[in-house]
């Protein structure tokens, strides 16, 4: 590949580049712009740094800023007034903080369930499946994960509906007489979110487990460790990095879904993303409040992720 690229440039392009490199106009400009090491650096660095500040950091800072505004978008001629009212209202209003804490708890529980569900899968894949089959498996499981949130959520709706596959199978084997109303509950929402996020757990776990040499377990077995002890004292600590990054990813991603809770959840499982979206609805127009909700959500999720990574990092060093 490399060699092709090095020598395979067609003559037309070669002509252009050699023409350009002796072109007086270009020489004049590049002579000024590329003269010193420092200029070359800034020519390279200016755009990415500007992008990071304006495109990535700008919206977040503006969001924090707006959360202290009295009103936004501003009507003509109105001055910006700052207030702490939205932040106060959050901590004192039941319909605001209940979905918030529910979302945090729910995402943590889902992260734990995803870990428990995918750990055996990753372990089996890394340890008991032949190498060439492992690649095939990873390729196949990637397909559902490339498909977007909406299509996959819809697939879960069809699966769990009253006339869905699960209810039909249960009725067919005579387990139940009437369909179980799975939909619009925490259960359907949980199934949907795990369906959307499990790959983000599976891949880090797999790459951590795959790196552990078999000789480690064998050595432990020679020293008299049983299967459970081998798992708990050798495999589990060595896969800690995978667990840490998988859990962080799944936690952060699962708090960010909006369409899935709307489509699969019910009134008793309202998540905070729905509360946030409600403040941006055309009729509501409570932007500062929505900005405040988003800010508190961002601070909380990133803090939890940081604490978790810290604990896992330290624990990992202690074990090794």
């Amino acid at each position, binding site marked *: *590949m490399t060699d092709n*690229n*090095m020598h395979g440039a067609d003559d037309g392009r070669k002509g252009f580049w050699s023409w*350009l*490199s002796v072109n007086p106009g270009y020489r004049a400009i590049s002579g000024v712009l*590329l003269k010193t090491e420092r200029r070359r*650096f800034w020519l*390279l*660095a200016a755009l*990415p740094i500007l*992008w*990071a*500040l304006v*495109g*990535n950091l700008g*919206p977040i800072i*503006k*969001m924090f800023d*707006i959360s202290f505004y009295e009103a936004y978008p501003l009507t003509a001629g109105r001055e910006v007034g700052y207030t702490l009212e939205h932040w106060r209202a959050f901590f004192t209003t039941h319909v605001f903080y209940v979905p918030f804490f529910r979302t945090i708890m729910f995402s943590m529980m889902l992260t734990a369930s995803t870990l428990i*569900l995918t750990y*055996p*899968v990753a372990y089996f*894949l890394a340890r*008991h499946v032949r190498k060439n089959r492992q690649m095939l498996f990873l*390729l196949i*499981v*990637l*397909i559902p994960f*490339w*498909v*977007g*949130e*909406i*299509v*996959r959520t*819809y697939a*879960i*709706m*069809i*699966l769990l509906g*009253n*006339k*869905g596959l699960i209810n*039909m199978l249960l009725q067919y084997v005579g387990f139940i007489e009437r369909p179980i109303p799975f939909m619009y509950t925490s259960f359907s929402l949980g199934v949907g979110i795990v*369906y959307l996020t*499990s790959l983000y757990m599976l891949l880090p776990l797999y790459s951590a487990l795959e790196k552990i040499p078999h000789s480690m377990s064998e050595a432990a077995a020679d020293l008299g460790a049983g*299967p459970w002890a081998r798992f708990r004292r050798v495999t589990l600590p060595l896969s800690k990095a995978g667990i840490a990054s998988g859990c962080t990813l799944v936690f*952060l991603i699962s708090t*960010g879904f*909006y369409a899935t809770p709307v489509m699969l959840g019910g009134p008793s499982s309202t998540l905070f993303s729905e509360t*946030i*979206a409600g403040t*941006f609805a055309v009729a509501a127009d409570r*932007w500062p409040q929505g*900005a405040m909700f*988003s800010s508190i*959500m*961002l601070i909380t999720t*990133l803090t939890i*992720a940081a604490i978790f990574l810290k604990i896992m990092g330290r624990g990992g060093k202690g074990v090794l």
Partner: protein
Amino acid sequence: MTRHTRIIMSMIYWAFIIYLFVPLSVMVLMGFKDSKFIGFPIKGYTLEWYRIVFQDMEVLSIFGYSLAIALASTFLALVIGTWAAILLSQKKFFGKMVVFALICLPAVIPGIISAIALRIFSQTINLNPGMLAIILGHTVHSVPFVVLVGMARLSSQPMSHVEAAQDLGADTVITFFRVTLPYMVPALIGAGIFCMLTSFDDFVRSFFLGGYEPTLPVYIFAQLRTGMSPEINAISAVVLLITAVLGLTAERLMRRM
């Protein structure tokens, strides 16, 4: 490991594969069902829903709109992402880790928060909800991915390539276009396809940043608010097919390099 745990684990392994594929398979199957009602039992099969979808001008124009957004945001993400990847592959400079963290920031921000922040931001810079705002949002989301793939590719580039070009008299810009960029191309094509997929399938940013014209996922979402219908299954099946083909192509390109 004992025999029993091994058998249990292989069962969990297969159950996981079934869990991944059954919902999508049932969804595709329902798109061929000879009835307006989504659910079992299935009495007969038809291609009628596909015919309706492919003749529906509204769906086709929404498809084109989503595709245009995906192409534009992918192009921008590739330019900015490649640029940033080269910057971050330079030898140490002051604040390198901070720049890296800032550039990858969108990758760790939950979707809804990123969408809201961008909605507020586009309001403050007087960018009305619509195509440009969605393109901005998708570009922000895609850049970290291009940067990570680009950096991985650059880490395997021998320094001698760049040095040889410079010994032969090429300046920094010409070295980039003649040596570094061609070396990155296979990785960038793969990354570009993934950016297109994430943009095309994105819901939350398109929903909050969009104007009256919906992208395809937003359209499906709106249709589902009024109830399921086999046309949605047909659209979803087409999306699934395109996604799988593009994704596997990108994966192959990135593996081969």
